[in-house]
């Protein structure tokens, strides 16, 4: 069970965008350079995030992307779900799809998969983009301190 590159890169790009919000609209080229991802791939990701109402775009020479809401109001769960669909270890528990499997009603393993889905969603919904930005700032601050003493 793996979160795809889309989810991993998307989360990283959103945190990068949040870090650089004070500079106005952020263009994808600068995100792609800082994060080492192709611009075409980031564009694909940002189109999905825009559709999910997480980012907004402005055209023109000063254009680029910004977050639709404050970083404290966007959770990791919003971003991952927009890019990956439901965070479910198996398809049937996400869709509550009795029709997807004839064994749905008496499957001995379904309860276990459901408990994993709940736990993963709890984690994702409890962490905001602001938390990740704070972690980043803390880390950069600490590494600057170390540089200073060396």
């Amino acid at each position, binding site marked *: *069970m*793996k*979160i*795809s*590159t889309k*989810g*991993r890169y998307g*989360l*990283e790009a959103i*945190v*990068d965008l949040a*870090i650089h919000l004070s500079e106005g609209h952020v263009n994808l080229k600068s995100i792609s350079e800082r*994060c*080492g991802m192709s611009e075409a791939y980031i564009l694909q990701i940002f189109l999905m995030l825009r559709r999910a109402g997480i980012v907004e775009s402005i055209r023109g020479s000063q254009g680029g992307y910004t977050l639709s809401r404050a970083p404290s109001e966007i959770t*990791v769960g919003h971003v991952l779900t927009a890019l*990956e669909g439901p*965070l*479910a*270890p*198996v*398809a049937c528990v996400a869709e509550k799809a009795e029709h997807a499997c*004839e*064994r749905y*009603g*008496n*499957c*001995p*393993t379904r*309860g*276990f*998969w459901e*408990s*994993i889905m709940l*736990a*993963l969603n*709890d*984690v*994702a919904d409890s*962490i905001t983009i602001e*938390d*990740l930005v704070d*972690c*980043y700032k803390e*880390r*950069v601050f600490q*590494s600057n301190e170390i540089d200073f003493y060396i």
Partner: protein
Amino acid sequence: MKFSTKGRYGLRAMVDLAVHAKGEHVALCSIAQRQGISTNYLEQVFSVLRKSGLVKSVKGAQGGYILSEAPENIKVGRILRALEGPLSVIDENAENSGKSKSSIQHCIQICVWDKMNEFLNELADSLTLEDLVDNYCKMNGIEDVMYYI
């Protein structure tokens, strides 16, 4: 984000084996029939389970598979790790290949992925094959299963 068929089918097949063993070896084709999984595929899955020491096989007309240990001693996590590798929400190989992590990647790792992995492993190790067998029996109206191992 999904577990592979190997993990999903393998877990179900282990429950089936535990329910139907009753001290005798169970032929893969009977598990395949009950669970609607192809026998060929089950052979692959059981060869992995056997190498991990979770099941034992006997060849011949009365042959088949049996659990190596009592179901209460087999954690679900152990079955899934045998079939899927380490239980992690991200591909550790892809993530660690070559270049070192950026600060953002590092923060996402410790705040998100590590936390998810912790819950994933905890949940998988808090449940045994016996718990799943109990579920199965309740759902299918079977009173109780006797284990002969």
